[in-house]
């Protein structure tokens, strides 16, 4: 019996070993799993523009609860302000910050280095695995400030990011996150028609122009102290403090709101509206504008901003882009005698441009000038009695502001 047991045991052992050899291993329920796939990469691209920021550090953070979360990715902007980085992260709101680097002010040509603590931000939604274009500008910085305010006041992060970007985009008339702001001082951006990209470039140039004025009013060379990036920080403070573009923000370690500005030049709703609009037109008229676009092509957008009544302005009544009528000046001194048929010329100028000039004699309308920019009319003195007469000139600018002036001439 024992021999049979030994035989059975030996057979069992050999069978198992043969089975192991044949199968390469034991049984079991596992089959050797493969690892789950990696999350697909989503490329985040864009431009840092205040104007074009070169060698700026781009950091992308998770945007959690309205504050900067973990760092998700980094890049450096190239000579066109372009950056690109890959994110392998779940869908979520993100905060993009630009720091360091330098740019050239559109209005003055002054090169400006970003100082420590000076950043431009953008907040947006990242969809995992999907490409995303995000511009980072003073306007997206404003939206980031508004989003922070909304989040601090109970709005969900997702809604705050959307609402803030929509608000600032609505005010400035373009998609601030996806539109590429073209450098208006670069002849490569010459165009015959206005695009959102050019408009965006003119908005950043307007900020440059306004800060140049603020520099002068502060007694400094343009953009040496008070420049666009400095203003961007103040603008962020302004809107993040109370959700309004009202020139009121927080000082360090203070709870109350204070008046904000660049040096002695204060901010207010109508700096954002009227002044920025005016300075955009100034830049359009400037020799630094290489786009080929003129102020008349930007007039509608400038006026829309100047007259904007968005809630972000806190109900402040807007001041028109230009409240003054055209200035009318005599070419020849009053009192000069004319007879027969003579050509009467006047000089007419206006900030926003003149659209019509009409002439009359003693209130009797003659005609409109064929060229409002160089208005003139032929007057036949033989139809009037001898003596002094009043030649009237009515000029109307592109915003409807009217000036009427009379000149006295003996005919």
């Amino acid at each position, binding site marked *: 019996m*024992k021999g049979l047991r030994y035989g059975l045991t030996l057979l069992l*052992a050999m069978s198992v070993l043969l089975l192991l050899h044949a199968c390469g291993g034991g049984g079991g329920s596992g089959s050797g799993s493969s690892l789950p796939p990696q999350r697909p990469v989503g490329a985040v691209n864009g431009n840092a523009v205040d104007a074009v920021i070169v060698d700026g550090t781009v950091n992308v953070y998770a945007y959690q609860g309205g504050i900067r979360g973990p760092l998700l990715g980094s890049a450096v902007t190239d000579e066109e302000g372009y950056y690109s980085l890959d994110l392998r992260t779940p869908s979520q709101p993100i905060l993009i910050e630009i720091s360091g680097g330098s740019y050239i002010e559109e209005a003055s040509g002054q090169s400006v280095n970003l100082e420590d603590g000076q950043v431009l931000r953008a907040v947006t939604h990242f969809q995992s695995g999907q490409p995303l274009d995000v511009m980072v500008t003073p306007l997206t910085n404003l939206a980031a400030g508004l989003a922070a305010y909304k989040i601090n006041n109970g709005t969900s992060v997702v809604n705050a990011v959307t609402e803030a970007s929509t608000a600032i985009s609505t005010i400035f008339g373009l998609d601030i996150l996806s539109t590429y702001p073209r450098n208006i001082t670069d002849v490569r951006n010459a165009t015959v028609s206005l695009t959102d990209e050019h408009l965006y470039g003119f908005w950043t140039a307007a900020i440059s122009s306004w800060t140049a004025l603020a520099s002068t009013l502060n007694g400094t060379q343009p953009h040496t102290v008070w420049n666009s990036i400095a203003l961007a920080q103040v603008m962020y403070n302004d809107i993040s403090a109370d959700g309004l573009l009202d020139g009121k923000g927080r000082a360090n370690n203070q709870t109350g709101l204070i008046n904000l500005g660049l040096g002695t030049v204060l901010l207010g709703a109508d700096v954002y509206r009227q002044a920025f609009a005016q300075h955009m037109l100034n830049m359009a008229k400037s020799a630094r504008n290489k786009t080929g676009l003129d102020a008349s092509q930007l007039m509608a957008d400038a006026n829309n901003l100047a007259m904007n009544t968005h809630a972000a302005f806190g109900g402040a009544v807007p001041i028109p882009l230009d409240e003054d009528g055209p200035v009318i000046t005599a070419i020849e001194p009053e009192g000069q005698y004319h007879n027969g048929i003579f050509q009467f010329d006047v000089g007419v100028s206006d900030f926003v441009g003149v659209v019509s000039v009409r002439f009359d004699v003693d209130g009797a309308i003659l005609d409109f000038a064929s060229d409002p920019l160089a208005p003139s009319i032929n007057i036949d003195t033989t139809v009037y009695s001898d003596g002094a007469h009043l030649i009237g000139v009515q000029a109307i600018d592109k915003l409807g502001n009217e000036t009427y002036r009379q000149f006295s001439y003996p005919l």
Partner: protein
Amino acid sequence: MPFFRIVLASFLLFVSAAYAAEGGRLGYGISLQNVAVEDPDGDVPTESGIGFVNLYYFDEFRRDIRYYAEFVYFETDIDAKYQKIGQDISSTGIRAVLQKRLRLGRHFKPWVGLGGGLFREEFTQRHTIDQDGFLLSTLSARDITNFMVSVDAATEWELSNRFDLGVRLLYGLPLNDGTQLYSATAILMFKGF
């Protein structure tokens, strides 16, 4: 796999010798196991699986006291969950258990036992995933030699002159970072010729 073969060969040598000398019972079992891994790097989801390699040798010391030796090979894949480590596990080892029969009734005389085992456990493909199920990180493979204390309860029925069928419930507690085990095993026992 070398460890697997060494342990299996050792087990078979022991069984051969014991069976030849004492004429105990040989067994083969299929087990349903619930595995909980003690992982030094974080939580691991519990996982259930079926073990197909469970070999036994049963022998009685005296009336109502017996021991059994068990060879176990088990592997399973644990899917990662958010903030829990996924991994593949293979466990090879032997267990020895001393059991006492409790005569609780005319037809119900279960065995209860206390034992210990030595297991070589390998944890590979260790990884974490994010909340959407994508791979977040991989962790290096690890292996341990795990001493496991076990308690069990079993009952059995005679199927024929040569075969018995047993059912065993077992709880195994690792004494280091290994696998904690709950298992239910059906064992076909061969009583010999």
